[in-house]
């Protein structure tokens, strides 16, 4: 795409959603900055370094496609969890389907409400972390989101929050083109868990900006379910203070196109960050995890653990980077991405990147792609286990390293049982 074309494509994106209603001065200023940023970086194109494996065309079209809504008999994930539920239907907050926005050690408002108020801390997060995350790699759909989103939640955790905040995205309309923007601040010593699930819209674009203060802990667990028509581009931008913890896990199952971007800046010493994902694709589906972790402090640990099981033409993409700045000594970086191909029709495309400017660091990375190990399969079968069941055991075993990244054992078990259910439904 030429420069002019990119810019006009960016303009087209900015006008495809309704113009947001006027808001407080700080919001207007963030929006104006985002508009300018959008025009400067342009729309995503196939020639962009980070869009080579995933064609953004379906995300760039003027209208969301008309999708078929898949009715599931299965109970929604996280149903059994004691939580503070916040529901969005086709991208609109629904108080009637949500719990009251209050709790101990937590302040929650809708983005809409926050936009007309002066929330001092939100001003230093909204559009700021996203803006910081545009360099060195641009993320056009995130800028678009900042410029135009009006729905989402604004959360401030001030202590250990006992229940997770569960964001449920319901899709009812077949053509909804949804933008959701969440702004989160975890104060010093506070602890917050956020769950996300649901199709959300015919096309879903989410941004979550998370500012974790010194000693804070943030846990995130997301299930991108079996909505086959899913067109989703999600972004997490995190800024981590000293001795803080950040953990995010995503389960992705099928879906036409799912691009999950996570950008983490480790700003304070002795901090731990983990981003993990397990994905399963059976059919013409694509899952793309694009991760960028910057170490800008001493003695920090980061982990990227991604496992993808693919069959019948499914594609898995992993683009993961660890950037270690000159002063980030004693960095411990770990990155693994693995594809398990169950047939010859599927693809796993991985681009692991390490860029290290400090000299006293330990970074290990690996990327593999292969089929089910025949020796192991024979071993299991020789004990009487049926071929399909043996294969399913091995699939779940393959994914387990990623699932082990989930902090809560109960939630990890829930995810494991979903995975097993999938393998059983999709056995050859």
């Amino acid at each position: 795409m030429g420069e002019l074309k990119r810019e006009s494509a960016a303009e087209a994106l900015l006008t495809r959603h309704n113009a947001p209603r006027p808001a407080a001065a700080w919001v207007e200023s963030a929006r104006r900055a985002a508009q300018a940023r959008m025009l400067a970086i342009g729309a995503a194109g196939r020639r962009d370094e980070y869009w080579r494996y995933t064609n953004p065309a379906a995300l760039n079209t003027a209208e969301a496609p008309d999708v078929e809504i898949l009715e599931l008999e299965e109970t929604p994930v996280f149903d059994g969890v004691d939580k503070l539920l916040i529901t969005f239907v086709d991208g609109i907050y629904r108080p009637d389907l949500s719990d009251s926005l209050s709790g101990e050690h937590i302040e929650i408002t809708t983005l809409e409400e926050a936009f007309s108020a002066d929330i001092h801390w939100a001003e230093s997060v909204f559009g700021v972390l996203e803006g910081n995350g545009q360099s060195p790699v641009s993320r056009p759909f995130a800028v678009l989101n900042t410029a135009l989103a009006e729905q989402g939640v604004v959360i401030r955790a001030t202590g250990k929050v006992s229940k997770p905040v569960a964001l449920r995205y319901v899709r009812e309309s077949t053509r909804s083109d949804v933008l959701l923007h969440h702004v989160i601040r975890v104060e010093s010593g506070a602890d917050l868990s956020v769950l996300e699930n649901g199709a959300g819209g015919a096309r879903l674009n989410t941004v979550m900006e998370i500012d974790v203060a010194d000693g804070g802990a943030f846990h995130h667990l997301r299930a991108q379910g079996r909505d086959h028509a899913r067109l989703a581009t999600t972004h997490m931008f995190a800024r981590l203070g000293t001795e803080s913890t950040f953990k995010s896990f995503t389960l992705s199952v099928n879906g036409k196109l799912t691009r999950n971007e996570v950008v983490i800046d480790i700003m304070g010493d002795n901090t731990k960050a983990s981003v993990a994902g397990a994905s399963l694709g059976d059919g013409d589906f694509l899952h793309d995890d694009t991760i960028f972790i910057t170490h800008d402090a001493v003695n920090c640990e980061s982990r990227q653990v991604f496992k993808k099981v693919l069959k019948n033409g499914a594609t898995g993409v992993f683009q993961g980077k660890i950037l270690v700045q000159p002063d980030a000594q004693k960095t411990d970086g770990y990155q693994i991405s693995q594809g398990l191909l169950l047939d010859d029709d599927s693809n796993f495309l991985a681009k692991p990147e390490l860029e290290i400017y400090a000299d006293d660091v330990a970074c290990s990375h690996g990327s593999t792609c292969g089929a089910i190990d025949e020796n192991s399969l024979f071993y299991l079968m020789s004990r009487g286990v049926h071929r399909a069941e043996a294969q399913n055991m091995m699939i779940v075993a393959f994914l387990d390293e990623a699932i082990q990244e989930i902090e809560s054992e109960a939630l990890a078990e829930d995810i494991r049982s979903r995975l097993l259910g999938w393998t059983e439904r999709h056995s050859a």
Partner: protein
Amino acid sequence: MFEIKNLKASLEDEDKQILKGMDLKIGAGEVHAIMGPNGSGKSTTSYVAAGKGGYVVDEGEVLLNGVDLLELEPDERAAQGLFLAFQYPVEIPGVGNMTFLRTAVNSQRKLRGEEELNAAQFLKLVREKAKSLKIDAEMLKRPVNVGFSGGEKKRNEILQMAMLEPKMCILDETDSGLDVDAMKLVSEGVNALRDGKRSFLVITHYQRLLDHIKPDVVHIMADGKIIKSGGPELALEVEHNGYADLLNEVA
């Protein structure tokens, strides 16, 4: 009971026949041993009988109580009552030992039309059997064979055998990589399963194992077939003189 008839088998990827007319007949409750030089086809016999991929059967039959195993999938052979204790038990990260064992036990019961064991019944049984093999509960919680020592892996094989209660057990060089104490422990495990009905085929390089697991018949295998059979004294002869005399004798 267990019978191998004129078995000829080749490697799938190479045009190379390994088994060249193997014959073997083991009656109920008997223990037979196969010894033989490297490359004579001992392990191949066990793999072909158990149904490992990578081999093509050119001719012959492997019968267990009259059923031709060669027509069956490996799991169906197991359900018929065949068990192979591996020379190199496979490590499977992520699959829990207990989950694996319970799935195996219940899969076989299901295939045989028997009622499956519930969690409590299974746990009681596995604890009992593990104790006699000196396998601690921690080991059972770990993934299959991952981080196990050579001895632990072999004991785990015998535990699986004890849990699955097969009719016909093939032990492929179960003594390899074992120290004297571990060999004794494994042998005791095997001997505890001898009940006059269950049959065993012990593949080994060394006579020493046969001091612990006493065979009724010893076979010498060379170049893909049995060249001589006899009593336990045949193993002692090999131990003292090597295979050269035997091979010359036949040639």
